[in-house]
């Protein structure tokens, strides 16, 4: 029997040879229409790093220590994972917590369930586990829907991913990327403000240094159409070039340039330099905005199999999102064009506000300083 015991001891040490490994967490997410089920395996060692599991500081993490912090562990993890469907956040809540072993040690296993308020072809995921604590951390996601599963890796450089939709063929993929395009222009305030700055004067005419109400809807419409078309053509060109990696610009230049374009467009309303050729400005700066869209598309990750389709869908999404803005703006602006409110408050006041906001962006982006944070800190 003694021999058995020594064997025992030898095998105990021999069982799994633990690896030294960079930090990974394993996330499985299953979707069935509006409901989600997930399991998230996170190394105890990494959790200790973030929220101090070794309460008595003896260098050993016991089950007692983990058990007493179960709700903290779940809260810490789940607050760093955002799942959204159709632009709305799905609520996630922990259901169970277990323990498991991986090649490099012991992991907490967090099981959770969730529901999404709205269905959609895709899920947008935002993964921020151990952000700021370990830039080398990776989240390895296995997304399961029906019989299809897909692997995605989250990192500090790529915390945002879109999953789903690629199971339903080209049409669902098309709608996925079109949705993302719409979503990007509606939430990308710099693009909207640029477009608005160019559109604000479209319902007015400038005569001997003052702005007057434009004479006809037709003229205003043509002016808007010229600006929007020029902007669209320009950013489609650069979006395509950048998405296909034919041209690449450093994102800091692009983002600063976009901020500058907004400042100039707004200032041009206050101190007109370009009056009738605004479509040319829309074209020139539109080239820059295209690189900006490409950056957003890169964050989503383009499927290599259907690159052209996804690119076209994303672009069409951007255009239709933009068209929706124009369709709301033009009739309203035209109706209000001869009022004091429009000319002083909306046109002049709006342009001042846009120029001010965009100047802050410009400084932030060009010098890489979070100005608004800094101002908040001074106060």
């Amino acid at each position: 029997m003694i021999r058995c015991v020594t064997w025992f001891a030898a095998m105990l040490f021999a069982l799994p040879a633990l690896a030294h490994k960079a930090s990974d967490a394993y996330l499985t997410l299953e979707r069935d229409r509006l409901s989600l089920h997930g399991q998230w395996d996170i190394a105890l060692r990494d959790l200790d790093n973030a929220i101090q599991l070794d309460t008595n500081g003896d260098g050993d993490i016991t089950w007692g220590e983990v058990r007493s912090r179960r709700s903290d562990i779940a809260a810490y993890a789940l607050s760093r994972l955002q799942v959204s469907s159709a632009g709305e956040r799905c609520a996630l809540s922990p259901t169970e917590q277990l323990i498991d072993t991986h090649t490099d040690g012991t992991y907490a296993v967090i099981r959770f369930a969730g529901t999404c308020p709205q269905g959609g072809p895709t899920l947008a995921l935002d993964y921020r586990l151990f952000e700021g604590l370990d830039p080398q951390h990776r989240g390895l996601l296995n997304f399961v829907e029906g019989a299809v599963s897909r692997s995605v890796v989250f990192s500090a450089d790529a915390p945002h991913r879109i999953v789903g939709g690629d199971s339903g063929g080209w049409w669902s993929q098309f709608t996925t990327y079109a949705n993302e395009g719409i979503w990007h222009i509606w939430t990308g305030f710099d693009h909207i403000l640029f477009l608005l700055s160019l559109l604000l004067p479209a319902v007015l005419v400038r005569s001997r240094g003052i702005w007057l109400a434009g004479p006809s809807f037709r003229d205003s419409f043509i002016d808007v159409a010229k600006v929007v078309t020029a902007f669209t053509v320009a950013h489609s060109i650069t979006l395509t070039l950048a998405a296909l990696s034919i041209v690449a610009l450093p994102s800091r230049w692009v983002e600063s340039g976009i901020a500058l374009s907004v400042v100039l467009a707004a200032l041009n309303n206050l101190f007109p330099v370009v009056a009738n050729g605004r479509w040319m400005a829309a074209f020139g700066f539109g080239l820059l905005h295209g690189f900006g869209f490409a950056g957003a598309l890169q964050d989503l990750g383009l499927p290599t199999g259907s690159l052209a389709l996804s690119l076209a869908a994303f672009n069409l999404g951007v255009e239709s999102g933009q068209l929706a803005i124009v369709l709301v703006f033009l009739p309203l602006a035209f109706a209000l064009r001869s009022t004091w409110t429009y000319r002083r408050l909306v046109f002049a006041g709006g342009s001042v506000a846009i120029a001010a906001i965009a100047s802050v962006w410009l400084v932030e982006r060009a010098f890489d300083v979070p100005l608004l944070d800094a101002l908040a800190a001074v106060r």
Partner: protein
Amino acid sequence: MRNWRILLCVAALATLANSATGAPHVPEDDAVVLERLPEKGDPALAQLKRMRAELTRNPRNLERALAVARNALDAARTLGDPRFLGQAQAALAPWWLPEDVPAPALLLRATLKQSQHDFGGSINDLDRLLAAQPSFAQARLTRATVLGVVGRYADARRDCAALAGRSAAIVVAACDATPASLSGNSLDAYETLLRALEHPGGDADVREWALTLLAEIAARRSDATAADRHFRAALALDPRDAYLKGAYADFLLDQNRARDVVPLLRSDERNDGLLLRLALAEQRLPDESVSFARHKEDLAARFDAARRRGDSVHRREEARFRLAIEHDDRGALALARANWSVQREPADLRILLEAAQSAGDAETVKVATDWIAANRMEDVTRLVRAERTQ
């Protein structure tokens, strides 16, 4: 009588194996130890943990951030544990992206980029640093090392030469030894370094480093007796150095001394690179076949895990694993070629050549032999021998 005992033993083991691995479960007792943290019984790591906690409260404190990054880098190097690299990078986060950062932060950033195999980024940082402070000796030494790793021997030697008069003679000689020995001056490099080591005293870490380089040059020159002597002298100074142990294990494997590798690396299973050498030794030892099978499986799982997270820092080791253990010539060649496009140390050249020969890829063999010829690597005996046996 004996038989049922063995049976009982096997049954008990099976139960144990089931409970130790496998499905997610709820431990039975609060007292069960689930994880032993690395700082257990290591005061330096416990200190590092306290420093990190302090830094979290004031992340822009440069002095503290530098101390944390330095200690974390040391820990990563000695233990071969990449989680500490993540901690070092986190400490440097406020100074990671901007171009203008204080010199010591830039130096650590470059060192960290090198460890992530971002050699281009590392050299960029060091170029900027040295343009501003040409007399910064540590930066110059680091750049010489990185330039050597990517095979830019002439540039590396220029940096080493610039250290003369600014650093100890042994540092200058050690800096120059590798690039000189790989570009047609191996005997000279060996003798210069040997002379520099004759002066006793000085920093033990530097002596250990110099002895390791000396051993490697001797091994490449096929002077096995001298190589073994230098390796053992270096190990006497630091028996825990993972790089040194790996280099010595490679030498022993080449000398058909697999038996000596096992005790050297038995307690280093956590380190992927060292586990690979251990498995390579066990492969040749019939009585280690059980251990070999387990380690082979472990390594496959670890390389798989690294691939899943998108890591490419282990390509050299994985190519060796595929070629020597899994006998997957094409897979090994693909990895060795991808690795060669990033790093060009003798070990990278060797796996490239060996994989190309096994896979019968004449074009890649030519890439390797052209490189040997272009750099006048007259002393890469093993490589040339390998080439002749083709």
